[in-house]
């Protein structure tokens, strides 16, 4: 097989994988939330209601596609893809497994090992907010514009702590490539703990996680949507599959953020204490590393749902206060300490 064929297969695989996660997540969100709230949840379509996302998708396809009369048509159409595409694209640099050897050819389980994968993730996650702002502004509705405005303000206060948290990781590992970072997280340090970013940067992890929730517009920071105040915020005027794209992009975004969290702080595909490559064949090792990665990602996906049904929404000024007055100073202190330690040890 030529290289481009392998790349194509990888792209198609990760694409379907991202879609599949998003589809299953809509089901998990509804069922798990029901279980947490002593309800039942959708259980009619298929076994355990597993076909519910499919039914929802069909429903959204058959709905009338309405564009409001005074809306900016081009921007209105542009909004949803602008929101969903960056979410999908971020997957390109996520290492979803170590490597698989097929027919004597070593294939790295990552679409592309960009040496600035880090900056790529930050850049794309910042672009995603344009989808919300443009969608909100183009709909010509007060709720939408408020949602879009909130998305912007939220972005400004959360990109900085997130960047600071990620900077510490870069300082620690000395590289921008995600694969390199994951490789450096294998093994143990201090003899007992797994060599994960989480144990080396607990504060950085917490800052990153909080920022990730704000990034994904999830409760407790779902102020751009905020259904009790703003109807549904920036996508109030959307319907049909345009709305579907927004909702879908949100879940793809969750998958991406969970994958990034796992690769940066939880050792990616590696199991703690056990080196799988020693006792597994080349092909089964590739598959096992992918499964380990998926289990970790699934945990963080579930955590998104779990937190959503535990914590109430923050007030808007509280959110700003948390971002500017707590997370940014903490991130700066964390960065300073890490820099000092790195300087002293190296």
């Amino acid at each position, binding site marked *: 097989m030529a290289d481009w064929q392998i790349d194509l297969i990888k792209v198609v695989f990760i694409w379907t994988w991202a879609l599949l996660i998003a589809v299953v997540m809509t089901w998990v969100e509804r069922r*798990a939330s*029901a*279980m*947490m*709230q*002593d*309800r*039942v949840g959708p*259980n009619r379509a298929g076994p355990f209601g597993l076909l519910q996302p499919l039914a929802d998708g069909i429903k959204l396809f058959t709905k009338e596609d309405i564009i409001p009369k005074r809306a900016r048509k081009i921007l209105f159409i542009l909004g949803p893809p602008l929101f969903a595409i960056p979410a999908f694209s971020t997957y390109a640099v996520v290492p979803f497994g170590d490597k698989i050897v097929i027919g004597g050819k070593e294939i790295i389980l990552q679409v592309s090992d960009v040496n600035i994968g880090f900056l790529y993730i930050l850049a794309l996650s910042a672009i995603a907010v344009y989808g919300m702002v443009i969608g909100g502004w183009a709909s010509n509705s007060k709720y939408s514009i408020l949602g879009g405005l909130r998305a912007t303000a939220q972005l400004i206060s959360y990109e900085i702590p997130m960047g600071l948290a990620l900077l510490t990781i870069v300082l620690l590992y000395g590289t921008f490539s995600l694969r390199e970072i994951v490789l450096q997280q294998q093994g143990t340090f201090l003899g007992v703990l797994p060599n994960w970013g989480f144990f080396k940067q607990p504060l950085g992890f*917490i800052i990153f996680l909080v920022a990730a929730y704000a990034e994904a517009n999830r409760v407790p920071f779902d102020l751009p949507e905020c259904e009790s105040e703003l109807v549904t915020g920036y996508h109030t005027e959307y319907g049909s599959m345009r709305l579907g794209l927004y909702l879908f992009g949100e879940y793809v975004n969750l998958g991406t953020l969970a994958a990034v969290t796992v690769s940066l702080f939880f050792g990616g595909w590696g199991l703690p204490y056990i080196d799988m490559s020693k006792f597994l064949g080349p092909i089964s090792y590739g598959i096992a590393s992918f499964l380990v990665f998926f289990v970790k990602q699934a945990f963080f996906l579930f955590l998104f749902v*779990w*937190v959503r*049904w*535990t*914590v109430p929404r923050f007030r808007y000024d509280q959110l700003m206060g948390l971002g500017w007055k707590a997370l940014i100073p903490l991130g700066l202190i964390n960065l300073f300490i890490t820099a000092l330690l790195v300087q002293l040890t190296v």
Partner: protein
Amino acid sequence: MVRRPVVKKEYSLGERVYLVEIAKGLGLTWKHFVFNVKASFRKGPHTVPTCWQYPEDRREIAPIFRGAHMLQLNDKGQELCVGCGMCARACPAKCITVKRGKPAKGEEDKYAGKTMCVSFEIDILRCIFCGLCEKSCPKNALVLGQDYELADYEPEHCIYDKDRLIANFHRARSEGLLKPPPVPIPVEAPPAKKKIAQKGDEKKGSSGKASVKGGKKSASNRKGEA
């Protein structure tokens, strides 16, 4: 109304950091999650602890439930209804129409009484299921059964005729869901009541010829005071 001053709670550092409290909250939701997931794997009806999954799970109905009507037959298979029309007169919704008639020659043994109902119609759309028809029936022929899924697509189908009412009875009998015969209300004048009534009369010094109604009333009043 006295207004109490608003006291602001002083939060400790752990509470202000908020993460510990979130962890506690996560623990609580996790408890509910595990409980409900476990419960959803339970076998048998009523698997969801918080609600009944209606078409599969059905609640048990009390034996004196007032559902769809039926016209009862006796043990010999004779119709009990004599077509007296007491039910139609008692019905507050005026949804029952009964036509009385005499059984045709040679068909006398099909009916328990000397007369029978030629037609018996209940408009189930108007019925309020109060059960007065059942109470008023002197032969215990008309009974409200346990069937409660009475929705239909056609309003005409909601007028139950005699055949359907008897079919209802046959179905209930085959499912063993017949109503137990009504327990006769004991008709007796309790002696204690009389005594109190007499006492009241004595105290008031009224004549013993007070109307029965009034006497009863005063008796019940006495009782309440005692």
